[in-house]
């Protein structure tokens, strides 16, 4: 199971939702020390839900850094709101993580 960290912080005029997901994010363009191509392994999609309602989908390519971190800007977030993040990768693995805003 992959670890996802979800943090919610107040920024200037919005709420910053920060996501960090433990994932190798191999682009498929690199070779190892023996010259063998390292196979691609990367997140393909993230889905963000607020209080059980889908608010955004992020399609991803292979050129996101290892253990990717994203920051999204939300408004009208209040204490007790439930944020759920679902992830999917190109090896058809998936998972989700929940966070209650406090």
């Amino acid at each position, binding site marked *: 199971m992959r670890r996802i960290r979800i943090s919610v912080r107040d920024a200037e005029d*919005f709420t910053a939702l920060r996501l960090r997901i433990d994932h190798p*994010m191999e*682009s*498929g*363009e*690199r*070779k*190892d*020390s023996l*010259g063998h*191509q*390292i196979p*691609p392994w990367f997140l*393909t999609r993230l889905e963000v839900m*607020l209080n059980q*309602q*889908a*608010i*955004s*989908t*992020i*399609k*991803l*390519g*292979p*050129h*996101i*850094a*290892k253990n*990717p*971190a*994203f*920051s*999204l*800007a*939300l*408004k*009208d*977030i209040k204490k007790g709101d439930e944020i759920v993040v679902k992830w999917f990768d*190109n090896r058809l693995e998936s998972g989700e993580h929940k966070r209650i805003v406090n």
Partner: protein
Amino acid sequence: MHRREWLKQVGQGSALASVSTALQAQPLLAGTVLQAVPDGLSVFEHSVEQLLDGAVASTDERVQIHLKPIAANSAVVPVEVVVKHKETQQICILIDNHNTALVAQLDTLHPSMLPRLSAHLQLIRPARVVALVQTSDGWLRQSQAIVELRSRCEPDSVTADKP
């Protein structure tokens, strides 16, 4: 049926089966890294064409890319796209000079979402970062180049093929 005719039919059938298997496998490959690109177009140009679907994107100051032109660590290159347009529908970040162009595509249709996205790229070589933004006024565009990659802080990185 003669054995020779039967073998011909079976042979054609298996050839068709292998062709259909190959065709079915293509979307999976396209979904990973390899992309079928028409002759004369780069992967980047093809991706832009697919996203715009015939529309034209005009360079606009309301799309801002925050990025340093010299990346200290090519494995973690911070980029932020901020859009100063109230009716933004999606933000796409693309790079050229690599095997795959699309980095991230965020939809911002829900009223809770503001048009702002930050992420970290991993680059194999210097590239131009392009933000394509779909709004109620059509597609807007902005770009910025990363001209130099200083180092990659990972022991297993050795080489990379040219795109």
